[in-house]
């Protein structure tokens, strides 16, 4: 039996749970917790796992955690399942994130948690939470524009505002930046280079 929310129920990642402090859920016997609290507690733990390339973002901010649910194992104990999806097919951070989640969950008492891959529906930059977008911008990375890339934009680059001075006088240096999810831009007002988190 599987309980908990599916990706369809929670398209925005976990904004609501982000506001809840982890201190409310001390490490201890979680079997006794109501199902909703237990789940919220796991989302809070995941909310403290940083993305290895953009450490201001948690894996929840990034929208790559697709589900948190429990199944009943062979010995009738409940087993935690956390579904994650890659941002890009070949993103090398995916493996690092998996290990980070496993380690963090183990520290919080979920040593036998199963971290599983979910490919469908594919990750989109629209799943970045509002909180995540704010954190990106204050970190100096322009958050993705809302429109998803399309072949119609074949010969045009989107207008991206500078995360430092907010000028729209920017130019794309390269479609591909320091990680698969970012493009390289330059502001022609304040002259600073910056990263743009691409739409996907």
């Amino acid at each position, binding site marked *: 039996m599987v309980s908990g929310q599916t990706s369809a129920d929670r398209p925005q990642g976990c904004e609501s749970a982000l506001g809840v402090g982890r201190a409310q859920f001390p490490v201890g016997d979680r079997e006794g917790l109501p199902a909703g609290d237990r789940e919220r507690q796991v989302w809070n733990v995941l909310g403290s796992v940083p993305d290895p390339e953009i450490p201001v973002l948690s894996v929840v901010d990034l929208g790559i955690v697709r589900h948190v649910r429990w199944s009943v194992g062979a010995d009738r104990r409940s087993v935690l399942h956390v579904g994650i999806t890659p941002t890009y*097919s070949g*993103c*090398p951070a995916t493996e690092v994130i998996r290990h980070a989640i496993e380690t963090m969950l183990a520290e919080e008492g979920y040593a036998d948690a199963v971290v599983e891959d979910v*490919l*469908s529906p594919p990750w989109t930059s629209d799943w970045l939470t509002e909180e995540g977008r704010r954190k990106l911008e204050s970190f100096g990375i322009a958050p993705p524009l809302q429109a998803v890339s399309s072949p119609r934009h*074949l*010969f045009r680059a989107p207008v991206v505002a500078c995360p430092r001075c907010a000028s729209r006088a920017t130019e794309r240096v*390269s*479609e*591909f930046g320091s990680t698969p999810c970012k493009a390289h831009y330059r502001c022609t007002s304040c002259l600073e280079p910056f990263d743009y988190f691409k739409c996907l």
Partner: protein
Amino acid sequence: MSVTSPSNTPVAVQSAHCRYLLRLGDTSLVLGQRLAEWVGHSPALEEDLGLANLSLDLIGQARLLLSYAGELEGQGRDEDALAFLRDAPAFLNLTLAEQPNGDFGRTIVRQCLLDAWQLEVYAGLVDSTDTRLAGIAAKAIKETRYHLRFSSGWVVRLGDGTQESHRRVQDALNEMWRFTTELFAADEVDEALAAAGVAPPLAELQPRWSARIDEVLQEATLVRPAAVPYQWHGKRGVHTEHLGHMLAEMQHLQRTYPGAQW
């Protein structure tokens, strides 16, 4: 080749479905490996990063496709065994993907032709009756759009650039055009999968690919070469001499130190 080596399973045991996945996965893998050869050698840092990013996406796609092919094959081979322990005749990639990089313009022309092909294939596969393959395609097509924007943008810049850059990309186009017939030449594997609703019929993809390529070539002031008969059969395991050399480098470590990890 010793009898215990699993590197070349007879074709007979691989289903059409498995062979179709190997064709897609091997094309991505071989093209990704070719692009990785540019790392540290590109004309500018931005293009170095760009080609490395494309390579990473392609190898990621190959991993998804080949691990699935390995499961369908049922011989206990995972994506690493398929990538690193097969010989050239067992690779089913399109012949165009294995062609050497040459100069940057030549790499870009090869990339643009294959990006446009992958875009049409993945667009068709999104509706596949094989839901796992449809999921892979839905993921990959978003990346492929970026690839095509990068490669077609460079074809235009180089084609409509200097006399020298124009000459080089036109030469590259003339030389590699002969491999494009294979992209849409359907054989029994393609027909079986199209009939089952797994893969889009290649004949339907050809006009859309052709129109997109014409649009790029026109903008780039390049001339589309004349069509040539189907004579290259990489997707049936018959390769140009270039693939073996590429695999020798790609597979060297796993062949020399089997099972090596780091």
